C-alpha cells in the first residue's frame, strides 16, 4: 500500500462519493458515535443553562445572548462542520494536512501578537473576530493529529530512521511551544499522549518510544522536585500561577522555608485563594452524593462558591456531579467510554494506517481531555484549563469536538467491509 497509488486513485472515488454521500450517511451512520455525542450535547446544553441561569436571570441577559443559546448555536455550527468533514474522504483531508497544519501554526503565531490575540483571564489564547472569539489551539490539536497521521503513514522501514522519528517530534514541538507560550499548559500537554500513541501505533521502534517516555518522566519528576524542594534561586522559571497550581496540587506551602510570619500569613491567604476552586469543586462533586440535588438545585453554584466564570466552563463536570450525583457522573463516563471504545474499534477496522492513526490520535486526545478535566474536578489532577469535550461551554472546543466526531464517522464510512 504505497503512498503514491493511494493518492492517484482518489479523484475517481471522490466523484463517486459526492453523488452517494446522502444515502451513505444514512446507511453508514455510526450510531455508537452519534448517540453518545447527541446525548453529551444535550447534557452540555442543560448544564450550561443550569450553571448560568441564576446570574443571567439576575443580569437580565436577553434570550438570544444566554450562554446555553449560544452553546446551542455552536453545536449546530459544529454539526454542520462535521457533516462537511464527512463529505470529504479523510485521505483527501490528509493530503491537505500540511496546509492545514502550517496554517494553524501561523494562526497560533498570530495569537501571540498583541493587538491580534485577545487576552482573557491573563492568557492570550483567543483571536477576536468581532462577535465571536476563536481559540486556535483547539483546532491545532486536530491539525496536529491529521498532520502526524499523514506523516507517519509511510512504510515501516522508513519509520526506523531516526530522522523520521525526530521530524515527528518536531511536528509536535512547533504547536507545542506556541501553545505553551500563550500560556496554555493544559492544551500543550494534551498533544503529548496523542503523539505518543500515534508513534506507537505507527510502529516506531520501541527503543525510541521507551527513551521518549522515560526521558519525559524523568524530566517531569525533576521539574516537580525542583519546584517543591529547590531554593528559589534554582527554580525553573514558570508562570507564577502555574507554579501555584502545582503547589496546590501537591499540597505544599506557598511560603519559602525561611519566611517571616507575615509573609507566611500572606502566603497562606494566597494558598487559600488558589486552592479555593479545587476545594469548591470537590465539595460540589462530593455533596452531590448518589442521586444529586436535581437540575438547577446545585447550591455551590447558586451561592456562588463555584466561581461563576468557570462553572459552566472547565468545571461543568462538578455542576453535573453536584446536581445529578454519582449516577450522573457514571452516565457521563459511560457516554465518553462508548465513544472511546467505539473509536478504537473503528481504528481496528480502518481501511488503512492513515485512518487508524487518525482514530488513535483522536481517541487519545478525547481520553486525555476527559481524564484531565474530570480528574481535576476530583483532585486527581492539577487544575489546568482543559475543557471537557462537548460539555464545557465554549465555541472552539465544541466545534473542534464535533469535527473530531465527524472525522471518526468519515473513517468509519470508509472502513474495511463498509465499502459498497
Amino acid at each position: 500500500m504505497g503512498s503514491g497509488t493511494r493518492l492517484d486513485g482518489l479523484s475517481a472515488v471522490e466523484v463517486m462519493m459526492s453523488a452517494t454521500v446522502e444515502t451513505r450517511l444514512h446507511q453508514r451512520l455510526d450510531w455508537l458515535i452519534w448517540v453518545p455525542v447527541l446525548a453529551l450535547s444535550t447534557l452540555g446544553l442543560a448544564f450550561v443553562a443550569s450553571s448560568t441561569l441564576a446570574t443571567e436571570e439576575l443580569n437580565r441577559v436577553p434570550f438570544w445572548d444566554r450562554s446555553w443559546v449560544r452553546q446551542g448555536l455552536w453545536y449546530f455550527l459544529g454539526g454542520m462542520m462535521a457533516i462537511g468533514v464527512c463529505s470529504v474522504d479523510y485521505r483527501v483531508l490528509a493530503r491537505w494536512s500540511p496546509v492545514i497544519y502550517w496554517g494553524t501554526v501561523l494562526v497560533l503565531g498570530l495569537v501571540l501578537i498583541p493587538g491580534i490575540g485577545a487576552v482573557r483571564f491573563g492568557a492570550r489564547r483567543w483571536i477576536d473576530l468581532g462577535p465571536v472569539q476563536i481559540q486556535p489551539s483547539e483546532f491545532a490539536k486536530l491539525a496536529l493529529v491529521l498532520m502526524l497521521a499523514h506523516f507517519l503513514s509511510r512504510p515501516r522501514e522508513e519509520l526506523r530512521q531516526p530522522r523520521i522519528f525526530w521530524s515527528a517530534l518536531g511536528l509536535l514541538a512547533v504547536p507545542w511551544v506556541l501553545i505553551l507560550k500563550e500560556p496554555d499548559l493544559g492544551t500543550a500537554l494534551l498533544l503529548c499522549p496523542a503523539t505518543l500513541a500515534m508513534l506507537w501505533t505507527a510502529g516506531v521502534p520501541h527503543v525510541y518510544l521507551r527513551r521518549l517516555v522515560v526521558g519525559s518522566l524523568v524530566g517531569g519528576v525533576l521539574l516537580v522536585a525542583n519546584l517543591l524542594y529547590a531554593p528559589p534561586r534554582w527554580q525553573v522559571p514558570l508562570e507564577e500561577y502555574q507554579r501555584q497550581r502545582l503547589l496546590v496540587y501537591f499540597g505544599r506551602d506557598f511560603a519559602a522555608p525561611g519566611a517571616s510570619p507575615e509573609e507566611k500569613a500572606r502566603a497562606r491567604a494566597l494558598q487559600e485563594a488558589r486552592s479555593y476552586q479545587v476545594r469548591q469543586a470537590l465539595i460540589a462533586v462530593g455533596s452531590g452524593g448518589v442521586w444529586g440535588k436535581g437540575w438547577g438545585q446545585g447550591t455551590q453554584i447558586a451561592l456562588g462558591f463555584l466561581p461563576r466564570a468557570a462553572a459552566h466552563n472547565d468545571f461543568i463536570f462538578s455542576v453535573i456531579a453536584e446536581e445529578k450525583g454519582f449516577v450522573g457522573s457514571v452516565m457521563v463516563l459511560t457516554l465518553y467510554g462508548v465513544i472511546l471504545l467505539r473509536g478504537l474499534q473503528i481504528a481496528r477496522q480502518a481501511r488503512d494506517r492513515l485512518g487508524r492513526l487518525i482514530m488513535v490520535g483522536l481517541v487519545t486526545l478525547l481520553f486525555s481531555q476527559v481524564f484531565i478535566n474530570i480528574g481535576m474536578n476530583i483532585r486527581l489532577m492539577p487544575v489546568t484549563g482543559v475543557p471537557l469535550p462537548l460539555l464545557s461551554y465554549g465555541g472552539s472546543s465544541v466545534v473542534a469536538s464535533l469535527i473530531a466526531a465527524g472525522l471518526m464517522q468519515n473513517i468509519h464510512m470508509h472502513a474495511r467491509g463498509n465499502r459498497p
Partner: protein
Amino acid sequence: MSLLDPAEHDNRAVNGLAVLVLAGLVVLLVGLWWIQVASRHTYQGQLEIQAVRTVRVPAARGRILDRTGVVLADTQPSFNLGLYLEELSREFRQEYGRIRPVEVVHRASLWTFGRGSAQVVTQAVRLSRSQLEELQWTARLRVVSNAVRQLSEVLGNPIAFDAERFRRHYLSQLALPYPVLVNLKVEQAARVAEAPALPQGADIDVLPLRVYPFQATAGHLLGYLIRDDRSAEGEEADYSYRLPDYRGVVGIEAAYDSFLRGRAGVKSVWVNHLGYKQAEQIWSPAEPGLDVVLTLDWRIQLAAEQALLRVGANVRGAVVALDVNTGDVLALVSVPGLNPNHFVTGFPAGEYDRLRDPLLRAQVNRATQEQYVPGSILKPLVALAALDRGLNPSAPYMVQSDPARPDRGCIYVGRRKIRDTAPPGEYNLRRALLRSSNSYFVHHGLQPGVVERLAELGVRLGLGQKIGLPTRQEAAGVFPSPAQVRSASWRDGDTANLCMGQGPVAVTPLQMALVYAALANGGRLLQPRLVDRLEAPFPRTSSSVQQFPAGLVRRTVALPMNHLRILHEAMLADTEDPEGTGREAALPGFRVCGKTGTAQVMDAQGRLRGYTTWFVGFAPYESPSFVVAVMVEDGGSGGATCAPVAREVFRALQEYGQRNATGWAKRG
C-alpha cells in the same frame, strides 16, 4: 485480508490503548465513587459549614413592674435603619467599574484589519493587588456613604457616617445589615416608611430595646445593663454572629438576669462565597424572658424621691420604706439618681462625668450600698438595753450644764467632756429620747451590763452583717460584737461613743429600717422582700410562675412588750411633743413614732467634716404598718432635714394604706 496483515502490530497497539483507556475510566470511576458515595457525608457537611452562618437572636427581655402593675422597665421594639449589603453588592461592582482607571488603546483585530480601520477601545490599567483592593474599598465606601446621605435627606437631619465602623462591619458581619442609624424616633421611622424612594438595600429592622419609662426613678434598684452578646450558660455557644444583647450588671436587672433574659433563639443565614446573605431560616425562636413584679409601690417611690430632692440642690441621700409585717420594700430611693436608659442608648454630654463625680457618686445605691454613722437613731437600742438591765424609765437623771455653753448640757466620761445639744435639767427616758439627750444615754449606757446587752441587741438585729440582697449593691456595716465590748481594749469612752451612735459603728439605711421594723413588730427581724413574683410575659395564658413568700423572718429577737410600749410612746413623743426633735415628721391622722439623728462625720485627721442626718420611724402608732428610714448626707439636722422628707413618705404610705383598705373592702 492478508494484504493488511502488517497491520497486525497496529492492532496490538490499539488493543493496548483500549486497555489504557479502560483503566483510566475505571480510575475516574473509582475516584468518583470514593468522593460521591463513600465520603459524601464529609462533603455535604463541609457544604453546610461553609454556607451557613448561625446568628444568635436575643430574646425580648422581661419587664419589671411595680406591685400595682406599673411598668418600670420595658422592652420595646427599636427601629434601626440598616443597609442590607447583599443588595448593594451589584452597586459596589458598578461603582468599582466606574472608578477603575482605563486607558485608551488602538486595537487592530483580524475582524477590523480587513476593513483597514483600527478600533479605538479602552482597556483597564494594570494595577497591583493592593491597589485593586483599595479601589474596591473606595467603591464600597462611596456607595454606602451615598446611601447614608440619601437617608439623611429622607430623615431631614444629617447622619454621621463612620468609614472605619463600616469597614469593621463589612469584614466581620457581612451577612447582617449595616446599622446606619439605631433606635429611630417614631417620627423618623414614619418618614422612612413613607419615603417614596429609599436607596437600594435600605430597610428598617426591629430589635428589642430596653426602656425605662420613668428615667432615673428607682434607677438604682432596677440597676442597669451592659452590652453582652455571649451565650448564657447551657446555651449553644457556636455562633457566627450575635445580635446585640444585654446583661444586667447590678440591681434587679442583675439579680434576676437569668429570668429576665429569656432564651436566645437561633437563626441560620445562608451566605454565598463572598459572605453576602442569600436566605435565612429560624431554627429556634427566641423565648421572651419572664416579667419581674416588684414589691415596690410606684407612688411611694416617687413621693419619697421628690421629697428627698426638695431638700436642696445636689442632695445626697436615701429613703427606705418597708412594710413592717411582710418586709416588702415599698420604696428604695437613692439620690443623686442614675438613669439606666443611658447605659443602653448612650450618655448625653456631661452625664458620664456626673456619674463619676467623687462627691456625688451617683452610681452608689445609698440605701443599701453605703454605710453611715447612725448617730442618735441608735438611741432606742440603748434604751432597750438599759431597760433590760433594769432602768426605771421614769426615774429622773439630772444633766449638768456645760461650763462653756451654759444653755447646753454635758457629761464627763473620765476626763473627757461630752457636749450635749440638749439643755441641762431633769430627764427621764421619754424626755431624753425626744430631746435626744446624749448625757442621759451615755450615763445609762455606762451602767453595768448595758453596753454588752447593746452589742448583743445590735448584732441580733442584723447590724454589721449583710442582709443577702441579690442586687449586688450591699454593704455590711460595722457594729461591735459582744466579745469586742467585753475585751480589755474597750474603754468607757467607746461605750459613750456607741451610746450616741458614734465611734466604731456604721449602718445602711435599709439596715436601720429593718431594725426599726423589728422594734415596731415586736422583735421580728425580717428579710426584706424586693420581688413579689415572676410572671410569664403573656398573663392571659399563664399567671404567676414563681411567687416569693412574704414576711420571711430572719430571726426573732426577744424584746419585752412593755419595754417596746415605753419606747413606742417615747418615739411618738419625738414627733408629737412640742419639744420633740422630730416634730416635722408629724402627720395628722397618721401618728408617727420616730427618732432623729445627726451624726458627726470625721475625716481621717479626726476633724469634723459634716453631719449625716437621719430620721427613722414607723407608723401608725396604734398598729405599726410601715417603717421609713431617711438619710441625707451633709444635711442640717435630722429634725430639720430628714423629718419633713419622712412626713411626705408617710403621707404617701397613709394613702397607700387607705387604698389597700378600700381595695380589700371592695374585694371582700
